[in-house]
């Protein structure tokens, strides 16, 4: 077998020290819970509450773009940070109005920006490098006129793979494609009850390594 580096040979690619990724994908939505508008009822000695109307809120799935910067620490370990941008829709289903108002879905288009930092561990299997990742970040959600912000925190864990497009010296050696799926846990932000479950994010895109 020819030695690595000789003409016409493929080498097990060395991981780049610095990687810049441009990704696109989708971020999942989720149920934000229900809230009733209630009034005190006229009972003796103390009142109960009766519903004026009922709401159930959710954030919809939305396309997402993301930029990430990774730096190799040692062997298969990378530290990676990123910023993502998405515009999910907040929808509020309003129903059961006591005066019979028609059911309505009130909506608002949000701008959601997340900045995160995490660790990634990568196995190099030829040109394919599967990896696992975990981290956390800062969540900022702005409403439609972008005048009001809700902030919160995000934790994530996920897995994916990076495929080098070439191993020979040249441009292709610096390029790879990447895909990953993450589970996201959001805290605060536009969360209307304490029981919000996880959501997901799936992205794929191009990686440039140096």
């Amino acid at each position, binding site marked *: 077998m020819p030695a690595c580096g000789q003409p016409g040979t493929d080498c097990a690619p060395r991981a780049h020290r610095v990687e810049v990724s441009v990704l696109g994908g989708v971020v999942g939505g989720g149920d*934000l819970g229900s*809230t*009733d*508008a*209630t*009034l*005190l*009822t*006229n*009972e*003796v*000695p*103390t*009142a109960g*509450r*009766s519903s*004026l*109307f009922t*709401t159930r*809120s959710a954030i919809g799935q939305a396309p997402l773009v993301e930029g990430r910067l990774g730096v190799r620490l040692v062997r298969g370990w990378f530290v990676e940070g990123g910023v993502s941008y998405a515009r999910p829709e*907040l*929808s*509020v289903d*309003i129903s059961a*109005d*006591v*005066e*019979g*108002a028609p059911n*309505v879905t*009130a*909506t*608002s288009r949000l701008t959601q920006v997340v900045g995160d930092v995490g660790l990634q561990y990568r196995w190099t299997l030829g040109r394919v490098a599967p990896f696992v990742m975990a981290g956390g970040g800062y969540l900022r959600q702005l*409403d*439609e*006129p972008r*005048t*009001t912000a*809700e902030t919160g925190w995000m934790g994530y864990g996920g897995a994916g793979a990076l495929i080098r497009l070439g191993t020979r010296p040249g441009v292709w050696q610096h390029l790879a494609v990447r895909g990953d799926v993450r589970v996201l846990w959001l805290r605060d932000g*536009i969360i*209307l009850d304490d029981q919000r479950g996880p959501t997901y994010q799936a992205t794929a895109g191009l990686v440039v390594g140096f």
Partner: protein
Amino acid sequence: MSQARRVSVLVAILAVLSAIPTSAYLKFGYRINGQSVVLKWPEGRPVSYVVGTRETTGVSAADFRDTIARAFATWENVPSSSIRFAPAGDTTRPLSDNDGITMLAYANRPELDRTLGATSYTIDIIAGALLEADVFFNAAFPWSAAPGGQAGRFDLESIATHEIGHLIGLGHSALGETEVVGSGRRVLSAGAVMFPIAFSPGNIDGRRLQPDDIAGISDIYPDGTFRQETGSISGRVTRGGLGVFGAHVVAMHLRTGALVGGFTLDDSGTFVLAGIEPGPVVLRVEPLDDGDVASFIEGPRVDVGFAVAFSPRAIFVPRGGNAPDVTIDVVGK
């Protein structure tokens, strides 16, 4: 203060059964030189008051004094409000307007067979400040000062809390639902102490302020951080492109369920809801069709011919700012 600068007005009646419609928290205003001025007590000193010594069956003078003090404390303890009160003793003299003394006492008014209590003001018509307010509780009704209420008797603390709301400058709230009973209305449910129709005898829930009441007093007498910690919503209610006068607009906070309301009070249908907790809200608009609107909002222009509607937008109230340009279009019933 010269007499020429004073004017007394009778306002703010709390009824047993009433034709008064619902509305959301409302600040009393007064027009001075063409400008609308919010009625409020001068800043910098507590509102001093005396209580009458007249007793009724089941309520001694001491009970009356202590109950009134608790009702004042309920308003004073709102953390986002700066208003303070100072008891100045009791008196045997009858209630009298324009004597410079703010007084709360029983008065026997059997001819007012639907009125539990009422508040009257003396106003400095130059500056718009409140100079004096007097509250009477109608001794023709059965009253109770019992800690847990008393069946068949109106809870003095609940009614006093409502009347003190007027005393500090709040109007009636429309957060409630009523049903027609005979020639009047009975309240089915309410979302504010300042709702104009009292709960049934024995009920004591009027002792606890609701978010609409708290927003109201805090809007009139904000503490140092209230304006920065809350936000407002402004917009219009329209019908066929024209403004709706007298619509009742209620904001519900999606996280807390808190309800705070307001009115459209001009022909363009403009409303402003202030003192809203920041975050996402939805808006509901309803006509003032629960009674005689003329007894609450002056003039015949109040439009009660539209159906209840919601804003198609979920609105985010900014902390310390205003969510503007919310338009809610309604249609006829």
